[in-house]
């Protein structure tokens, strides 16, 4: 595990032995995962251990909190990483009993645990003691039971009316003295990028408090994946998490997790194609992000949105040629990809090169329209401030984190695919504001173009007898029982991680999606408190959330 990199603010190396000695007696036993050492601790030691891991071993990034119910226990798993070196991972496993599933909250250590634990309470039913806001998050307030727990009865009515649910003794909370105004922004609102409900408290035009209410697009994606077979049936679903053309990036998250879990090799040729496709998706996704952000800042008649869509359309055409579909690609397979490049290959290369050649001109156009526009600058510079330490605590990743100067990109720091062998840069901006996030995305489009160009060069010269697109994967894949893996990739919005526990069958025992949008969105209240409504909308746009991925 140890890579020899020094942890930032700790007195320990990240090696397994060091971690074991740091946790010491508090570790009841070891429960190692495929790519991370795992320590089982008592439910009342959570904060203690996590504080030590954060402050002394440098694990400053709570990547994911998984929860699941076994026959004999509930279990919460905290997947920790380091922003400086995401390959250093550790899992903290917290079992609780089935009759009293109470576990100490990790919220004081990592703010990211706030929403993550709410989700676990909502879906699995673990109570987190000391949690500041123990409400449901994805399901409606009136939902009965916890759908991912083992004793959940699917036949029972799952929702009751609010009147039946509400506490009749609870007084009316309406405060007639207050000077503030409560405003529901969404779930149907022009600027919420889907069905997001933001409960905003306003003092005039100033935002006093914001509470994003999510879950309107919850489609039980985790449960659906738990009911599909590894080999075929799960792959179509990742396309539907972040459904705005980032499909291949999502598929890669699943592919990477299972390939690690079942130890599947991917041919190099397929990795290059994957890299090519994924970066095309990233360009398409960032174009859309830019366009919709401009929609929020410019208004509904602006040209940037249309230009962004027009340019994204070219990428979509290329992806359609490659994968056969425009959004729901279903192109990756375990151990490779479904199809080789389309024949005739020259046409495909030419089409892609034409796009790449036209890109600099288009980007300079966006620069004229957006980046150098003075009104855009006064609107976006120094608004929606997300300080790096706050971003880290909330587990923000992707362009949102890189716009705050956090230099983390899993493509470089935890390499997969063919990225290591290619020449490209990670874009970071130190502005911490909406403007920086736009600049990061536009910079990443250029970097993606560089990657695609190199991939095309490679593919053009690839020897014809070595074009293996899929390794030999058994038709029914049954990974060993009780293997656990958590793997992330750099999706368009940040780290998209998948946790899978196999139970010996051909379907996952637990499938957990760590959504980057979910954690990025949780930073919205810090970003916007004290700012104007217009900046709230702009900040929301700059986070580039996709509700399909937030709610899953």
């Amino acid at each position, binding site marked *: 595990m140890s890579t020899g990199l020094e942890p930032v603010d700790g007195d320990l190396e990240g090696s397994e032995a060091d971690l074991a000695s740091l946790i010491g007696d508090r570790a009841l036993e070891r429960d190692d995962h495929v790519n991370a050492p795992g320590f089982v601790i008592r439910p009342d030691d959570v904060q203690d251990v996590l504080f030590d891991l954060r402050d002394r071993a440098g694990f400053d990034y709570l990547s994911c909190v998984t929860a699941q119910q076994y026959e004999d226990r509930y279990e919460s798993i905290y997947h920790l990483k380091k922003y400086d070196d995401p390959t250093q991972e550790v899992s903290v496993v917290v079992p609780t009993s089935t009759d009293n599933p109470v576990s100490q909250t990790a919220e004081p250590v990592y703010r990211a645990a706030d929403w993550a634990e709410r989700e676990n309470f909502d879906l699995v039913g673990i109570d987190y003691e000391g949690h500041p806001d123990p409400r449901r998050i994805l399901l409606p307030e009136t939902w009965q039971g916890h759908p991912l727990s083992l004793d959940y009865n699917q036949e029972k009515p799952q929702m009751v009316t609010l009147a039946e649910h509400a506490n009749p003794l609870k007084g009316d909370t309406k405060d007639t003295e207050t000077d503030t*105004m409560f*405003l529901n922004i969404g779930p149907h*609102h*022009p*600027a919420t990028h889907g069905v997001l409900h933001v409960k905003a408290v306003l003092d005039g*035009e100033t935002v006093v408090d914001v509470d994003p209410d999510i879950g309107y697009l919850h489609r039980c994606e985790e449960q659906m994946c738990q009911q599909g077979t590894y080999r075929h049936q799960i792959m179509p679903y990742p396309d539907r998490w972040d459904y705005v053309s980032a499909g291949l990036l999502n598929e890669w998250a699943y592919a990477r997790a299972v390939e690690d879990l079942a130890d599947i090799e991917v041919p190099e040729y397929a990795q290059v194609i994957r890299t090519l496709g994924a970066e095309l998706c990233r360009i398409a996704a960032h174009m859309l992000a830019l366009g919709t952000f*401009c*929609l*929020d*800042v*410019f*208004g*509904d*008649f*602006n*040209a940037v*949105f*249309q*230009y962004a869509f*027009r340019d994204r359309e070219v990428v979509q055409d290329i992806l359609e040629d490659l994968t056969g579909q425009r959004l729901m690609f279903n192109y990756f397979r375990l151990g490779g990809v479904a199809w080789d490049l389309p024949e005739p290959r020259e046409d495909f290369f030419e089409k892609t090169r034409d796009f790449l050649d036209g890109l600099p001109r288009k980007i300079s156009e966006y620069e004229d*329209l957006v980046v150098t*526009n003075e*009104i*855009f600058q*006064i*609107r976006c510079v120094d608004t929606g401030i997300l300080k790096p330490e706050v971003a880290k605590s909330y587990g923000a990743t992707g362009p949102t984190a890189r716009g705050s100067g956090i230099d983390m990109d899993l493509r470089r720091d935890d390499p997969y695919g063919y990225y290591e062998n290619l020449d490209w840069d990670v874009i970071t901006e130190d502005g911490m504001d909406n403007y920086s996030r736009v600049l990061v995305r536009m910079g990443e489009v250029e970097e993606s173009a560089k990657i695609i160009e190199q991939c095309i060069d490679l593919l053009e010269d690839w020897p014809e007898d070595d074009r293996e697109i899929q390794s030999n994967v058994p038709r029914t894949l049954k990974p060993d029982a009780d293997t656990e893996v958590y793997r992330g990739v750099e999706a368009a919005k940040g780290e998209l991680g998948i946790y899978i526990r196999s139970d010996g069958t051909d379907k996952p025992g637990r499938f957990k999606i760590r959504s980057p949008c979910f954690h990025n969105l949780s930073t919205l209240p810090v970003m916007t408190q004290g700012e*104007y*409504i*217009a*900046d709230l*909308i702009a900040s929301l746009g700059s986070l580039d959330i996709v509700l399909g991925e937030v709610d899953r």
Partner: protein
Amino acid sequence: MSSAVSTLAPLQVGEPLLPERLGELTGLDQLGVGGELIAAFIGAFIVGNLMLAMTGVAGPWAKRKITAAFTDRYAVNRIGPFGLLIIVADAVRLLAKENIIPEDADRPAYDLAPIIVASSAMLGFAVIPMGSGIQLADPEVGLAYVFATAGIASIGLVMAGYASSNKYSMIGGLRAVAQNIAYEIPLVVTGLSVVIFAGTLQMSEIVAAQAETLITIGGLDIPMWYAFVNPFAFVLFVAANVAEIGRNPFDIPEAPTEIVAGYQTEYSSVYFVLIYLGEFLHIFLGGAIIATVFLGGPAGPGPAELGIVWFIVKIWAVFLFTQWLRSALPRVRIDQLIEIGWKGMLVLAFANLVLTALIVGLLEADADLTLTMLTVIFA
């Protein structure tokens, strides 16, 4: 209505106004005051319908086509030639819709607001000299009257805002008032600088004052349009006007991505049509004021009968300009808007006024010198 008043008290000398000419033409002026009233109504009817027809073309069709041109699209092109019949289709569609009125709406105010918004702009057209002899009234205080009627719209907006019983409407109404007050003053003050040049508030006189030749370049006579005489005031006026009519970058009273649709969120069907028409009428009224005050009104090459054509061309140019701004400029934030209005535009407007007054005052003594000096300073 105002035309009726002015015909009863004809203060003008010079070219007869539209109601008078209509009266002569139809013989209605023989019938005394009642006949004059009828003639005035007919005149108002003609002008009103001309403006409504223009908004009818602009709202459902031209706006879409212009936006589409900026964004590489076609827009409406299926119904009729160039999609023009969309105007009919949209009219039928909008009028056929159910008029949904919120339960908690403050009824008389809610119902009156769309009428005020639409009619306040219509009133302004009464004193605009549109060329080809089309002018309903020409009071001595014409310019002040136009600003006053355009300002009435703010009342309509705030009524719509609070009466809708919707928080978005409320915010939109408040924003509209804050914006209109902040920009009306620079608008009027900048307009005053023109009055100093022209020496009158009367619209026809302002137009007449611009008919002279400012300078001749290469055989081409540049008329003394105040846009050329004082381009700074022109730019200031156009900017304030964009804010006044609430278009990008100052479209924050509506700001669809922030507060849904502002004061008009709850309006549907006929009421929506009225507010929508009112908005476009205001754009056109803004264009008409700019054309009259800065662009020589109906002046243009060709015979004087073409005046109305040139006038409409100028109005549409202003409309096109607002759509162009919409395609390219982000909207500013409310605090920035107020800051630009009170700290920027107002100061600049007064500076412009004082400067103009100084120049005009100093040169008043020698009228011949005025023109040459102006040529030196501004050309």
